[in-house]
């Protein structure tokens, strides 16, 4: 039951402090160095991941349906959704900007949802993806998640800069708030994931042929 080259701290009867990385015996209640409560495996991690994931998904729906920007000029008022704005930009030939918007506001959030869901599912189930790959995936998701806020920043800056009263004004639409909430929720969701769970199943990877006990935490 013990993989020689994949010995976990848990298996070694130890627990590492997630804050200062001091290793303690597994039953140590709190880190004597920094005072962090020591938990070998967060039992509710996956539950929180899924909760934030669903909240982010709910917020992502209006973020795409409602207009992101409301642009009022002297003659007209236009409001564009995220995808609609990107399409308009694409039609006007601003392929680069359109691509950035599409990647930052559509591709990355959607990919994040899928990655987090995959990671959360793979913590419980077998997968062909190696634990290392999944860890890289987790690192990437956690790193890149903040960049989804680029669209919100654009809206915030434009709204504060373009306030020319009658001539032109830009105000954030309801989608801006929804999108920001969605990004925040997915970031919290990614953070809630206890990455140590990736490694709990390595032995199972290695002993794929062997029967595996279901209970795991």
């Amino acid at each position, binding site marked *: 039951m013990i993989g*020689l080259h994949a010995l976990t701290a848990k298996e070694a009867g130890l627990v590492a402090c997630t804050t200062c990385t001091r290793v303690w015996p597994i039953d140590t209640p709190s880190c004597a160095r920094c005072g962090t409560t020591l938990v070998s495996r967060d039992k509710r991690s996956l539950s929180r991941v899924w909760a934030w994931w*669903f909240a982010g998904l709910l917020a992502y729906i209006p973020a795409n349906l409602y207009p992101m920007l409301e642009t009022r000029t002297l003659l007209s008022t236009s409001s564009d959704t995220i995808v609609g704005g990107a399409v308009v930009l694409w039609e006007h030939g601003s392929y680069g900007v359109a691509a950035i918007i599409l990647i930052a506001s559509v591709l990355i959030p959607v990919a994040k949802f899928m990655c987090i869901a995959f990671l959360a599912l793979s913590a419980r189930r077998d997968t062909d993806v190696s634990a290392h790959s999944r860890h890289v995936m987790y690192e990437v998701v956690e790193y890149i998640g903040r960049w989804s806020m680029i669209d919100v920043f654009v809206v915030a800056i434009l709204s504060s800069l373009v306030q020319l009263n009658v001539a032109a004004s830009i105000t954030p639409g309801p989608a801006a708030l929804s999108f920001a909430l969605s990004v925040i929720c997915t970031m919290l969701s990614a953070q809630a994931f206890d990455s140590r769970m990736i490694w709990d199943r390595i032995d199972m990877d290695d002993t794929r042929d062997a029967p595996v006990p279901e209970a795991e935490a």
Partner: protein
Amino acid sequence: MSDPIPPVPVQSAQRSLLDRVTIVWLVPIIALLVALAVAWQSYSTRGPVIEIAFQSAAGVTKDETEIRFRDVAVGIVEDIRFGAFLDEVIVEVRLDPSVAPYVDEDAQFWVVSPEVSTQGVSGLDTVLSGVYIEGLWDEKAGPLVYSFTGLEDAPLLRDGQRGLTITLVATGGGLSGNTPLLYKGVEVGRIGPAMVADDGLSVTADAVIYSPYDNLVTQSTRFWDTSGFSVNLSAAGASVDFDSVASLIAGGVTFDTYVSGAPLAAQGSVFTLYPDQEQARASVFNTSDTQTLDLIAIFDGNVAGLTAGASVEYNGLTIGEVTGLNGIVEDTPAGGSRIRLQAILSIQPSRLGLEVNNTEEALAFLAEQVEEGLRAQLVTASLLTGGLKIQLTGVDGATEAVLDLDNRPFPRLPTTASAVSDVASSAQGTLERFNALPIDQLMQSAISFMDNASVLVGNDDTRAVPGDVRALIADVSAVVGADAVQALPAQLLVIMAELEGTVAGLNAILADVNERRVVASVAGAVESAEAVIARVDAALAGVPELVAEIDAVAASVAGLPLEDLVVEVTALSEQARSLIASEATQALPATLSAVASELESTLAQVATLVADLNEADAVTRLLAVVDEAGATAQTVSGSFDGLPALIDSLNQIAQDAQGLELDALIARVTDVVTSADTLLAQDTTQALPGELNAALAELRLILSDIREGGAVANTNAALQAVRDAADQIAAATDSLPALMNRANTLISQANTTLEGFEGTSPAIRDARDALREVQEAADAVQSLARALERSPLLR
């Protein structure tokens, strides 16, 4: 790696649900609830969708175009699509639920877009915001209707306006749609788009008159077109008519109600649109509801210019028109027959303020008026065109006549002489009479008269008169330079005041003349002109006789012995000049002035002397001296009392002289001049000023002595000297009246002489002024004598 591993406590996999579910799950649950609530909220407050069908949907944009009610957005266009068979555009509008109950079957919708027309600019806000759909519905809720047909144009009554909706029908064109409906220049309504009626013969247009102006429209109201302008040349003269510049460009319709009392027009009434005001007005009286009264008037003489349609006026008020003209054969009292003009007058009794449908009453009224002198008369309506009209006017002292009620076909109105003036023929007659005047004879007579006059004037003696007279005037003016003459302006002021009074009287007379009606009318003016011309004619006929008379006068004037007279006058002037120029006369004023000053200074001394005398015993003696001086003064005064009477008599003589015949006058003037000559030539006259001067000089010396020896001790001697002086003065003044008498005689004679000339030559005028100044001088001398008389020194 084979160290013993401590046993790891393994927990049970079966945990309670609470353990498995974290608090974080509240977040998605709340988010879900909020989303559901928002969805429900937006769904439940959503209004209904209605469909409006338009012919075209220019400018209507999905999700942008609003639907407005009273300029408030109450919905938005959700979709635009074609109807079946592509024959219309269907606009789907999401209505605000607050107005949805009111959008019932009465609702109207139209597209408001910017419009620039001659009426102005409308819908300007839609230039920026884009078009919008305007909705109009009443305030009563009704069952919701989901399908409407949009209007092409805005309805006439909008935004809660109320008013009267009518239909205008024009047969002759001129009905232009979308124009304002004006009443006295104020827009009180609008006309909708015009369209050709189904019968293809007329144009109809809906129109609306806004409340409260709808009260102006009754069943007898007439509408007419005011667009464009009309030029009318008729018996009443030329007129150019247009309503306003705006309606000139854009067209317009106005209306008026000529007959009062008709009930108000009902909604949807149909009115005829007349091309112009004349026809509209005429139509009122052509209608059967105003019964006309037909009369006949028969006129003598030339009636060229009277046409059917000419107005019939009663004291200037048009009460009808001439509807027919024809000749009528009439038997003359002499036995023959003649053709006279018969005019049929159609009179509207309502114009006279009589009851509309009661012709009996109107006839009775007219019959009464005719008995009081009412007659029909042809008068000139327009001097320009020579058009005629018929005037019913009261004629004073007209021959007895009655309204012939039995005449057929209509009652006959008596007529009076026409007051038609023909300017052209009158002017021509005047010119002809001018032509016939004996201008040549007149000129001949005038030339001969001028010749005679020039012979007279060309005489050398006549020419010498002004020079002599002027020299005389120069001398006289030197004499009258004295202060007394300065009183002349005061007299002039009195004369001016009298003149002003006279002018004021003249002004009053002129004002009186002005108040009279000089020219009452053009016809009157023409009559006056004719009369004047006739008089000028008559006057001109007498011109040759006048010329002959003037000729005779000139001849007699030429025959007068003027030359002798002129010689005499010259001699007289010379004499008068030498008299006045004598040094003694010139020195007289200066001496008088010196005497006066001496008297003044002496007076002061005497005053002190008298004060001393009061204390001394000399008073009684002084009283005696004073009595004597008083007697002397009485004498002097008495000698002057005769002067005014003398002057009056002289004036009388002058007036008599003016009334004399010229020949006699000339003869008398010659005598006068001769006698004046003789008088002036006498040595005594010449010496008179010298004597007076010497007396005054002596007086002056005495006064000097008085002053120099003015001691109290010498009072007696002084008083004696004073008495002597008084005696001397008395002696001198005794001779003054004689001098005055002579001078006055001379002056009056010379005055008479000069008045005999009655000329306007400046020399003669100057001479007369000089004589007046001599008189002034005499007055001055008189006042000097009076002053001497009153002088305390002599008392």
